[in-house]
Structures are given as C-alpha cells and as structure tokens.
C-alpha cells in the first residue's frame, strides 16, 4: 500500500519531498526531529542524526522512513464522498414507549423542517441521523441509506463523513485564530495534497462569507474562542457550506444565533443535498418541502407544505422583515411605531 511512498522517500531529497507533500513537515515536527539536511534523502539525512537521541524517542533510523510512508499514505488518502439519493428513517419508540409507526423517506434535493415543543426530541432525531442509528439509540430508530440497511463496517466508515452538522453548540474551545482554525480544517479536509494556494482560497471564502452572515465583523486573527455567539455560528455556517461536501446537512435551531438565518439556510441547502432543519421559526419551517412534527420523542405527523402555505410565505416574510426592522431600530435607540 505504501510502496509508492517507500520509493519516493528512498529517492527524493527532503526538499523535493516536502515541496510535493507539504504535510510531511508535520510529520517531522511531531517527531521532534532535529533539523535534517534538506538536500539529502531521508535515509542519508538521518545518518547524520544522533542515534542515542533517536533512541530516547523510541526510534531507529530504519523505522522512520517506513513511518513516514505510512503517515503520507494515511494523510493523502483521497476522501471519497458517497453520493446518497435518499435516506429512510424507520420509527422506533417514543418516550412513553409507544411504537413510532412511520417510515420517513427523504430524497436528495429535499429540505425537511423538524418542529415540536422544546424537549420533544427534535435534536434527538437529528442525532439519530448523524450516527446512522441502527436501533441502538434511546429512540430505537433505524436509518437506512438508498433503501439498503447498513452493515457495521459501512456504518463505521460513513460515520461523520456523510453528514455535515450544525449543532446547537455555539462556542469554540480551541486556542486558535480564525485563520489558523480555517486553515487546519481545510488541510484536514483536503487530504494533505491541496496546493497552498487552494487552501488560502477556501479560507478566504469562508472568512468573508462568515463576516457577511455575522452581525458584527471580526478579523482573521481574532481568536475563535473570543467570537460572540453570532460570530461563532456564522463561522460554523460558512465552514459547513464551503469545507464540507457531505450529502446530508443537519441544522439544529439556527434562529437564536444572531446570524442572517435565511441567508445561512440558502447557503447550506445549495446543490442536491438532503437537508433537515430543526426550528421554531415559522418562516424556516414553511420554506421547507415537508415538515416533521415531533411529540413526546416520536414522529407524530409528516406534512407536505401545502400550496396555500407556500403562498403565505411572502406575507410571512414581510412580517419577519418588519420584526427585524423593529429589532434593529430598537438596538439603535430609535422610537418604534407600527
């Protein structure tokens, strides 16, 4: 599997190697290796390194090239995204233990809203989809892709890869600036091969998009932990829209986040994706093609958005704009009159 890398590592100089595979630099950094001569091959350069020093780190100069080959092969493995035409959620049990008698099929290109009182189980439904539940979550639901049950290996290899998720978590914890965070995420997604220019471009796109969505502006060298709730959410939306090519998008209550939610949804629902939005917002709920009503932890009803409801959207949109204007005026110390 690593043979091509074995050959490259054997014959290329370190300079050529890190030029072609910039991610190799991380390998040397992580090993805490002393500076190696970039004009030599790895094996030659290691001859000059202190054996005793390597031994302390549990290394010999024979193992390092093989480890680097394994590292490069893992880091550059292309991320294959599985296309998904439909998902089906097979009902389990609600919180009262009653059977949830539904089979909800959602096709690619469909937006479904999930509504219901707080605590009714909206997030749980999204969580079941995220982990591709197979009767092993509290709801006992099962999730099926393209009409076929998943075997365990498939489930494991798909978990976290086919679903892009905006959860209710609104804070960052990592000690990184916005630029560093986006760059690391871009590199982790690009399987180590992306030329530097491409990474920069994605970072810029995400950054300017996040700033458009957020109320207050922030800069590339702001620490992510210092972003406001709205700014964090805007950054997560932009990141989700531009870094991820997952065919399923799950959005949990984006409305309380201080971002332009309609712009955010439009951005996230681009292309032929399967989108589920848990929401309390009438405008978002009715913009969807279908809505799922959750009660007591179970799917209580599934409604297609009716033509009348679609027709009412324009009017609801106006009301929504009016509320937004009032909110803005209030914030700027204006007097309000409707």
């Amino acid at each position: 599997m690593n043979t091509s890398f074995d050959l490259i590592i054997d014959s290329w100089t370190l300079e050529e190697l890190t030029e072609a595979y910039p991610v190799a630099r991380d390998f040397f950094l992580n090993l805490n290796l002393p500076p190696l001569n970039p004009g030599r091959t790895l094996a030659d350069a290691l001859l000059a390194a202190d054996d005793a020093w390597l031994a302390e780190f549990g290394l010999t100069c024979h193992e390092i090239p093989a480890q680097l080959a394994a590292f490069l092969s893992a880091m550059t493995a292309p991320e294959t995204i599985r296309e998904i035409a439909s998902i089906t959620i097979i009902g389990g049990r609600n919180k009262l233990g009653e059977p949830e008698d539904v089979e909800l099929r959602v096709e690619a290109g469909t937006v479904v809203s999930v509504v219901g009182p707080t605590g009714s189980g909206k997030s749980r439904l999204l969580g079941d989809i995220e982990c591709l539940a197979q009767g092993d979550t509290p709801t006992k639901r099962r999730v099926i892709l393209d009409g076929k049950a998943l075997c365990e290996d498939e489930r494991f290899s798909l978990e976290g890869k086919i679903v892009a998720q905006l959860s209710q978590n609104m804070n960052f914890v990592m000690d990184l600036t916005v630029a560093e965070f986006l760059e690391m995420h871009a590199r982790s997604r690009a399987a180590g091969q992306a030329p530097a220019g491409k990474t920069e471009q994605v970072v810029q796109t995400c950054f300017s998009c996040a700033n458009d969505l957020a109320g207050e502006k922030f800069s590339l060298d702001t620490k992510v932990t210092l972003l406001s709730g709205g700014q964090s959410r805007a950054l997560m939306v932009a990141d989700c829209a531009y870094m991820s090519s997952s065919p399923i998008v799950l959005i949990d209550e984006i409305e309380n986040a201080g971002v332009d939610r309609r712009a955010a949804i439009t951005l996230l629902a681009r292309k032929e994706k399967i989108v589920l939005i848990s929401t309390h917002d009438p405008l978002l709920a009715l913009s969807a093609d279908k809505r799922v009503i959750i009660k007591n932890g179970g799917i209580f009803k599934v409604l297609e958005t009716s033509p009348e409801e679609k027709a009412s959207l324009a009017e609801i949109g106006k009301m929504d704009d009016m509320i937004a204007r009032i909110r803005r005026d209030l914030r700027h110390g204006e007097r309000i009159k409707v």
Partner: protein
Amino acid sequence: MKMLTVAGPPSSGKTSVILRLAECLEQRTGVIKFDCLTSFDKSRYDEAGVPVQIGFSGKFCPDHFFVNNVEGGVAWGLRRGLDFLVTESAGLCNRCSPHITGVTGICVVDCLSGVHTPRKIGPMLKLADIVVITKGDIVSQAEREVFAWGVRQVNAKSQVFFVNGVTGQGAFMLAKKASAARDVDSLSDTRLRFTVPAAACSYCTGETRIGENYQMGMMRKMEYDL
C-alpha cells in the same frame, strides 16, 4: 480472556469510556486501575458491578510499577473468569505508554484539551491501536474534525472513535472493534511497545534535598544558554 490497555491523560474520560464499553460488551469485564496516590474510580466501578482492582504506585515510578504488576493482573482476571480484562492508567508520566505488543491498546483523549494536545501526549497515543475522542458533543463538527486530524497526524494507523462518556453514544462501535482483541492468557515474554524511563538516582530512593552533593546515579543535566 481478551485484554485491553486503556491510557489517557487525567480527566480525559477513561473510566466513563470503560464503563460504557463494558455495558456494550455484555460480557464479564473486569478492570485494573493503576493510579499514583489516590483513586476515586473504585466506587464508580463498584456501582456498575464491574470487578476492579486498584494499584497505587505511591513512591515508585508509575511506569515501572505498571510493568511489574500487569502480569499479576492477568492472573487475577483468569482466576475471576473474566471475558475481558481492561487496564486503566492515567498516562503514567506522559512520556510512557502501557501498550503491549499483541494486546489492543486504546488511548482516550478529550477534545476540549487543546489542539496541540495530541502532539504532547507521546507514545501512549502514538502507539495505540484505537484512539477514543471524548466530549465531542460539546463542540462543533468542524472542531471535532480538526482535533481528529491532529490525532491522525500523530498516529496515522489508529482507528479513531468518538464516544460520548455520558450518553454512551459511539461506545457500541468501539465495543465491536474491541471484541476483535486477541485472547491473552499470559504476558510472559510479550513486550512493551515503548521503553519506560531509565533512572536509578538518589531521588528514586527517597532523597529530597536539592543540590549537587545529593545527586547520585543516572541523571541528566540540562544545558542552559549563557
């Protein structure tokens, strides 16, 4: 009897992961907890009905203590008729790793612990077969991915699992993987995957005074700048 060595920095969620794992395994699982001075985990294992032995290394090097006692632990597990024996240790001194060739090694890391933590943890992460990332439910997917990438950079070969120690989400898949661990009935002649620290100096034997006069045995001096 199958065996797992579980290591990870303090408070990374090892005990919770092991308890959730034990639930999913649905087999007789027992734990040996290696600790330095105190341990608060015994009651948690007792409550869950998981047989547990606690070993305190006290004034001894925790790494050496682990190696000297782990074989006895295997004998205990066999006497108890366990299907699964799990050792839990708090990363010993971070330089070390309790992972043994032929025994499935798990490292538990907490994704709130900082983006550079995977690089700092050393062999117990680098040489693990499975890496379990905890507390992922608290952050966004983007942050989980960045953290997991940091883990893969240090250990490209491992399989990474996200496990929620509170709800148990993810433990099911971890249990599937852990069930593939090899059977072990003795550790005689197996090897540690990484050496334990080499030191036998005056401080190892109880010296507390500071100064050149008291420093004897194997030790290393730092070279400071002028």
